[in-house]
């Protein structure tokens, strides 16, 4: 059963990918890319990677197609044929692919429990993380404690991307931007507004649940941040950007993005203050397990804040472009 599911998912993935490469309709390509994300999330699920699946669903099937669609709305959905580089591409792809295939021949079999990967470092996480960290979700333990520094890097990457997008699109000229009207913010979309109002609170609530439940089940700061942002994005889609800006000030969101990283970084520094190494939470509370627990909650909070803020920044900036692009079709 597992095998059939596996083969089916992979085949679907392949078909989707090939179709995306083949089609000239960018809209179809983006939608299919979303489906590709969803399919890979299902695949991750079937591999037992629940956290990854959760994240991939939010990113690959949510945020990423959303951003691509806004881009498409400005840039147009038709793609021109341009075959001149195909040969070079085929050659590169052929060589790289052949190299990869040869490499696989001497790899440990798929799923084999005595592959080197499962014998060296990972066993300690499974065997000792309960004693050392005290939470059941091993992925969270590794993510937030054993390899917490990678995760700090990850948050900084997100922060960097947000800042990059901001510097590219968000800071054009110093003139006050004109208020932007969301196309949906018309009274006729009454149904939407009602549904929106009903849906948004549970979404935010769910985000909080994901944020703090990450230690026990799948979830954590990143996923929670994305969901939280989605709540606001939905709100802006229904009520218009300026309605959101009334609730959350843009400067505040930008500051919050920085604050999230700072929280994470400072918690790490507390480790040094408590006489241990950077990002060592053991000294934060009475006993080391409690300390770890506290530390993880704190840094996950940092992650959530930064991710949510950056997602909101990126989305707002893109939608502002969209609105402006509609007003001036060919601004060049």
């Amino acid at each position, binding site marked *: 059963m597992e095998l059939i599911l596996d083969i089916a998912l992979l085949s679907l993935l392949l078909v989707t990918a090939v179709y995306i490469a083949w089609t000239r309709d960018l809209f179809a390509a983006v939608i299919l890319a979303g489906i*590709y994300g969803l399919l890979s999330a299902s695949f991750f699920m079937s591999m037992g990677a629940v956290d990854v699946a959760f994240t991939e669903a939010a990113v690959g099937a949510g945020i990423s197609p959303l951003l691509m669609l806004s881009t498409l709305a400005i840039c147009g959905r038709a793609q021109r044929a341009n075959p001149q580089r195909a040969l070079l591409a085929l050659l590169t792809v052929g060589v790289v692919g052949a190299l990869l295939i040869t490499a696989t021949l001497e790899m440990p079999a798929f799923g084999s429990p005595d592959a080197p990967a499962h014998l060296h470092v990972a066993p300690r996480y499974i065997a000792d993380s309960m004693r050392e960290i005290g939470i059941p979700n091993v992925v969270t333990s*590794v993510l937030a404690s054993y390899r917490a520094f990678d995760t700090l890097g990850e948050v900084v990457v997100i922060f960097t991307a947000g800042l990059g997008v901001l510097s590219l699109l968000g800071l054009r000229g110093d003139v006050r931007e004109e208020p932007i009207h969301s196309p949906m913010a018309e009274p006729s979309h009454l149904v939407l507004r009602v549904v929106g109002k009903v849906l948004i609170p549970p979404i935010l609530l769910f985000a909080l649940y994901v944020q703090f439940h990450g230690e026990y089940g799948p979830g954590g700061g990143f996923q929670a941040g994305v969901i939280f942002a989605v709540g606001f994005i939905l709100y802006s889609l229904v009520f218009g950007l300026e309605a959101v800006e009334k609730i959350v000030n843009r400067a505040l969101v930008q500051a919050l993005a920085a604050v999230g990283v700072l929280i994470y970084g400072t918690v790490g520094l507390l480790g040094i203050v408590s006489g241990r190494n950077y990002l060592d939470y053991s000294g934060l509370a009475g006993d080391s397990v409690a300390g770890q627990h506290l530390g993880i909650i704190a840094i996950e909070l940092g992650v959530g804040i930064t991710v949510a803020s950056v997602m909101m920044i*990126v989305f707002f900036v893109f939608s502002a472009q969209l609105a402006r692009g509609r007003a001036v079709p060919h601004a060049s």
Partner: protein
Amino acid sequence: MLLSALYNYWVVILLMMTGLYMVIAQGNLIKKVIGLNIFQTSVFIFYISVGKVAGGSAPILSQLTTVYSNPLPHVLILTAIVVGIATTALALALILRIRQAYGSVEEQDILAGDGQC
């Protein structure tokens, strides 16, 4: 035997190559970014496949089982996914600016616009 042991990796490689092909061959910038996405996602699939242990369940400790998937690749890929979306967002923002500056998102037009065909 070989097939069942490795087919997973082979499909992953095909996916990667499809993505890479799109990045190199296609002149539309958005399509390039989609290709980049597929390329990266396939690498994620590869990592997660590496982490698979036959019969193992999700690495959330419980009394019911003692066999778990390897959590380390999961952690790495969580990070990698985030890196991926960060790159995508930045790339798309760049595309929007390029569109404003050049009036097109086709590589040919851009090169022609700068006079370097």
